[in-house]
Every structure is written in structure tokens, then in C-alpha cells.
């Protein structure tokens, strides 16, 4: 009886584990099968042809997603420029400098940051951050890629901080002792020994943060202006893949070419985040072996 119960519980949890894999495959299949009609009607090359996304055009519809991909990467990379230095510095402080009590207070507060609804952050970006950006850089409008990058950076921060902190804490204590014994200061130890030793973990944390940033929708939708033109700098308005789906999915007639094209956009977005997360995982595994 007891064994039976143990086994039942074991298989139940195994089934739960399998479920997430089945869901992942299911989403992959759904996106691919729903985007096939678009590939037949529009053609793969037209999705990557020069031009811009405009399926509801007055004259001829266009389906180029190049500008959307560029916008997505700009916001994703831009957010890392903010979030990585800030996040790693914060993680280093938590892992190496802060006392136990400080850590107990700071960690939950940083995790609360992850709980801010993205629509609230987007509104904050639209009415608070955008005017500040416009003022600082002498622009007419601060509704641009930079605004989106800052806000998404804030969203990616908790992911980066907690994973980077884990990586730094996992560096064996003997490394630090050896360094200190050789006469290095605490600062030198952190900068030359601990951080380099945790580097692959920090990179993995950053990439997972980027995966989060690339898929973020609502904040970007509200803060970046969603213009369809090719962005040439961070001061230009951009539209990301995820924002594009959110904007158009609600109104599109089910079964139309436009509808299936949005599934293709979703498929591309899925592949991008999948590859980023996979790379992060590979780096993370390697880092585990190193330690």
C-alpha cells in the first residue's frame, strides 16, 4: 500500500513534468500549423523582403517583418545595457558585501519589482519617463526605443539580479580565501577573482533577462510608439514583434491571410526567445561544470 502510494506520487509528478514539455511542443505545433497558410499565400521571402509591415494598407498590403525584428532586438539589447551593469552590481552587493539582515530586506524588495503589472510600467513610461527623455536629449518626443529599453530593463532586473547572485554565491569560498591570503583587498578579490569565476553564470543570467525582455509586450506597446518605419537610432519609435501581435490580433478576421501572418510573427518570436533561452542554458550548464 505504502509503495503504491509512493509510486503514484512519483508518476503524478513525472506527468506534471511531462506536461510542460507537451505544452511546449503543442505551442510549437500550433504556431507552425497556423502560420502555414500565410507562408503559402504571402511567401516566406515576402516576410523578409525590404519594406514594412502593413497588412491593412489602403493600396497593397505588405508583410515584411524585418523592421519588427530590428525593433525587437533594439529594445532587447537596449534593456540589457541598462539592466546588466545595474543588475550585476546589485547582485555583487547582495552576495559579497551586504550582511545577512540587509540581504533579507533587499532581496524581497527586488523581487517585488517583478510583480509590477507591465501595463502600470507602460503608463509610467508614457507620462513620466518619455517627457524626461525628450527633455534630456532635446527631442520632440520621448516615445521611442530608448524609453522602451529603460522600462523593459527595469522588468528584466529581478531576473538578472537573482540569477547573478546565485552564480556569484556559488563561487567556492576557497577562491576568495586564496585571493585574500595573497594580500588582495576585498575589492580586488571581487573584481579579479569572484566575478570572473562567476562570469558564465552572469552571462546566462543576462541572456535569460534578455529572453524576458524580447517577449515583453504591454510595456513596450505603450512606451515605444509602435511606428512601422525602419528605426535608425534609439531615439526612433519602434514596433516589436510582440507588440505587433498584441495590437492586431484582437481585430483580425479569423482565417484571413493577416490572421495567419500574425501566427507567423508569433512563430518567429517564439524561435528567437527559444534560441536565446537555449543559449543561456548551454552557458549555464558549462558554468556548472567549471565550478
Amino acid at each position, binding site marked *: 500500500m505504502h509503495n503504491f502510494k509512493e509510486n503514484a506520487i512519483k508518476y*503524478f509528478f513525472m506527468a506534471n513534468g511531462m506536461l510542460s514539455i507537451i505544452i511546449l511542443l503543442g505551442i510549437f505545433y500550433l504556431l507552425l500549423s497556423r502560420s502555414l497558410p500565410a507562408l503559402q499565400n504571402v511567401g516566406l521571402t515576402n516576410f523578409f523582403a525590404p519594406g514594412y509591415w502593413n497588412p491593412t494598407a489602403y493600396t497593397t498590403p505588405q508583410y515584411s517583418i524585418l523592421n519588427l525584428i530590428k525593433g525587437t532586438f533594439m529594445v532587447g539589447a537596449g534593456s540589457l545595457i541598462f539592466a546588466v551593469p545595474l543588475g550585476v552590481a546589485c547582485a555583487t552587493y547582495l552576495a559579497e558585501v551586504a550582511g545577512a539582515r540587509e540581504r533579507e530586506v533587499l532581496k524581497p524588495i527586488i523581487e517585488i519589482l517583478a510583480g509590477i503589472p507591465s501595463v502600470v510600467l507602460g503608463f509610467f513610461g508614457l507620462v513620466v519617463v518619455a517627457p524626461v527623455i525628450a527633455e534630456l536629449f532635446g527631442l520632440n518626443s520621448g516615445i521611442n526605443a530608448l524609453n522602451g529599453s529603460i522600462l523593459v530593463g527595469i522588468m528584466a532586473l529581478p531576473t538578472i539580479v537573482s540569477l547573478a547572485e546565485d552564480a556569484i554565491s556559488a563561487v567556492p569560498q576557497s577562491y576568495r580565501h586564496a585571493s585574500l591570503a595573497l594580500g588582495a583587498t576585498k575589492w580586488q578579490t571581487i573584481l579579479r577573482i569572484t566575478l570572473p569565476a562567476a562570469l558564465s553564470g552572469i552571462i546566462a543570467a543576462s541572456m535569460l533577462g534578455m529572453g524576458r525582455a524580447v517577449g515583453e509586450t504591454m510595456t513596450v506597446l505603450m512606451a515605444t510608439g509602435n511606428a512601422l518605419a525602419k528605426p535608425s537610432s534609439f531615439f526612433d519609435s519602434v514596433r516589436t514583434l510582440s507588440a505587433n501581435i498584441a*495590437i492586431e490580433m484582437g481585430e483580425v478576421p479569423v482565417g484571413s491571410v493577416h490572421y495567419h501572418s500574425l501566427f507567423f510573427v508569433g512563430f518567429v518570436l517564439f524561435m528567437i526567445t527559444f534560441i536565446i533561452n537555449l543559449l543561456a542554458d548551454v552557458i549555464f550548464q558549462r558554468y556548472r561544470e567549471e565550478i
Partner: protein
Amino acid sequence: MYSGRGNTGRGKFFLPFLFVVVALLLAVSVPVGCGQGTGTSADAAKQGKSTAAATIQIRGSDSEVNLVQRLAELFMEDHPGVQIAVTGGGSGTGIAALIDGTIDIANSSRPMKEEEINQARRNGIEPVPVRFAVDGVAVIVNESNPVETLSVAEIGAIFRGDITNWREVGGEDSPIGIYGRQSNSGTYVFFMETVLQGDYTPQMRNMGGNADIVEAVTTDKTGIGYVAIGYVTDGGSVRPGIKPVKVSRNPGETSYTPIELENITSGKYPITRPLYQFLNGRPEGAVKDFIMFELSDRGQKIVLEQGFYPITDEDRKFNENSLK
């Protein structure tokens, strides 16, 4: 709580835990399993028409959402049994929901397209249009912008991207910051078809709603945008920070402001449009009462109070025709 620490105790702890996990899984899978779940509330509303209690689901146009919400509030005061839920999302979103049968009334600031009507009919839904207010789509610029008047052709050229500097239309030497709506907006479609008669420039920022455009033009000194007239004024006067330009039908002709009733009813202001609601079949019960309330003198007075304009005789004839 910690009385049983042995194996049997743990077993007792695990069983309730399993129930919680199973319950959570079910809670997640059920809404996913039946995406049409929302349809039932609209169906229930239809069946509930014989009784006093009824729920009316309204979705769509961002331009109309505040107005319809106000109308619904006042209607519910007089009809305590009726619940009306009004949400925005854009005309296209409302029409899509009507086609899917998940709502009772779709707010739309544009007529339904032929293919949308056909699609609704294939789903067994017969869209019936009602015009309940008139809108003068205002072209707004920043308060500090010296440009006072524009012709329809100039506005079209700006939004198509053919004119990119304020100097070309009598303003200062500075680039034009263009703010428009997203493709799910009825105003976006209406403006594209009647004013641009071409494609929007890809440089245009696509904002989520009328309020976002007002906000953006308030902060951008070089900005231009288009919004429903109800978003230009607040309690009878123009909102601070923005300025609706006077619009002439052709270059050189007299231009008119959209904030005067006379300019709209006489048709002198060139960019006016009726605001629609689409019903599923001829209205009955609570939906009919609500529509009649909107079209009544009291309803039309509220329309005016909310910054929009009352329907014309032509619109009344249109309504009689479609409700008959």
C-alpha cells in the same frame, strides 16, 4: 500541526497537497479548453430578456467608450435590473467580438466592411447598424504651434508623409511628429479612407487610444494627431496643451473648427462621421430599451454634454430603416 512526523504523517500531508495541485491544473486547463466560454454571458442576456434582469455586453470603439459608458450609467439608474458592461479596445475589436457572438452590441466609429458582414452572417449573426451620435474628428496640434488652419489635402499629405516640415504649411521650420491610432481603430480606418486616401507614413507613431494621442501632442511641440471630438474638450472647453486646427475643405477656402455644433450640423467642418452601434438582429428587451434611450431627447442631450454631437434627420431615417 507537527504531531505526525513519521511516514504516515507525511502521507496525510501529501494527499491534500495533491488535491491542490490537481485543482490548480483543472483551473488552468478549463478556460483554455473552451475558448468560447465568454459566449454564454451574451446568450444568457438574450434569454433573460423576458425578465427584468438582463446583462448587456458592449465592446469596441475607443472614441465611443466614454460616451457609451455615461449613457449606460444613466440608463442603469432608471433600470435597476439591467447590467451594462462597456469596454473599449477599438472598433475592429468590437466588430470581431460581435462576429464571434460574444457581445450584444459592438461600438464602431466606422461602418462594417462587406467581408465582416458576410462573416457575421456565416456565424448566424445579423448585424443591425444604429447611428447614435455624430463625431467631428479633430486634428490636434500642440498649443504652442502657430499653425491655425489646414486644408484636408494638407492634412492628408502630412499623414501620408508627403509633407514632413511645419514650414511647408505655414509653420515654423521643424519636422512634424505624427501621431495616429492602430489598425484596430475605426478612426484609423475612417481617417485613412476619407482624408489620406492612401497609406499612412510608416514614421507615424501608432498610439493605443485617443487619450494617448492627446497626451503625446500635449508634450510634443511639433506633434499632430487626430482624435474624436469628445477627447478635445473637457467640460465645454478645450483641454490645456492642445489645439484643434480649423479645417477647410479645399486649400484657400474658409476653414471651420470642429468644436462648434453649427459647423458640424451644417456640414461645413469637412471631417465628420456618424458613430455606430451594431446589434445582433433587431433589438428586443433591454437592448432595445437602451437603444431607444440613446436616441431619445435625453440621450442626445447626454451625447452633447459628453462633447459629441446629436444625430441628424438623415441619421434618424437611417435608424428607422435598419430597425424596422
